[in-house]
């Protein structure tokens, strides 16, 4: 498949809103999911530190 330039590629034969609307929302969902997972991990670790602080455990001390 060879396109006659970038403009023709982005025009998608007149179906640009449908094609790019599909791909953009898929990409957006992936970005939101990955960022959300990172935030969830950070929150869980922060909660562990808060929990350790309230129990008087200094950070880095082995507790197992």
């Amino acid at each position, binding site marked *: *498949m*060879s*396109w006659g330039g970038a403009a023709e*590629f982005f025009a*998608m*034969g*007149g*179906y640009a*809103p*449908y*094609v790019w*609307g*599909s*791909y953009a*929302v*898929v990409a957006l*969902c*992936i970005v939101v*999911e*990955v960022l959300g*997972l*990172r935030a*969830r*991990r*950070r929150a*869980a*670790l922060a*909660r*562990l*530190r808060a*929990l*350790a602080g309230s129990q008087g*455990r200094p*950070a*880095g001390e*082995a*507790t*197992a």
Partner: protein
Amino acid sequence: MTNWLRLSSPQTFYPLAGQMAPWFAGLAAVLAAAGLHIAFFVAPTDAQQGESYRIIFVHVPVSWMSMFLYVVMAGWAAIGLAFNTRLSHMMAAALAPTGAMFAFLSLWTGALWGKPTWGTYWVWDARLTSELVLLFLYLGFLALHAAIDDPRRADKACAVLALVGVVNVPIIYFSVQWWNTLHQGASVSVTRAPSMAAAMFAGMLVMVFAFWMYSIAVALVRLRAIILERERHAGWVHELRGAPA
């Protein structure tokens, strides 16, 4: 002999999941790059649909994954109910949000493909309606889990919901045969050659594998977050609190 039961402990699986996730994520990125290249620069224009058919390279993978992840989720739920293993229920819970996302994307990309080919974004067709039910099952699973405070009870209730809901998956799959639907029948089947150009088929398949690897990567990362949240009173988890976010 490897002691497989040992792997079912969150403490053993947590570091293993952390080691595996980047590999699956990397594989997903490489496959997606290759798949998108085929989708836009190798696969020819469709004779009937023009360029609008290129939605197939995301529509089919997200739709397949939405069904496949539900079956895997129900499988983990069944194992959790049968053997009372915490990690199995956590696996099921780790898959649900990604499955819901794929079900939504299946409906979204389907709507945007339906408009230029059928003239409508939505129709109460058997395939579309049963896929919408799948999205509601995922959302029901997530809502039920959030609504029950005791995580062990939430696990069991959600496992039952997941198992009952699995009946919907064959309904989605066979809907295009059982009913006279607007949605087209399967273009790809294990019993005969695919009814599309080889490059189109290859691009679709590579994208399916990309989304599959992506699903494994995010499920593993989410599983680790769930373990941190739920096992926070365990001593070994507290040693992780300084871990890089």
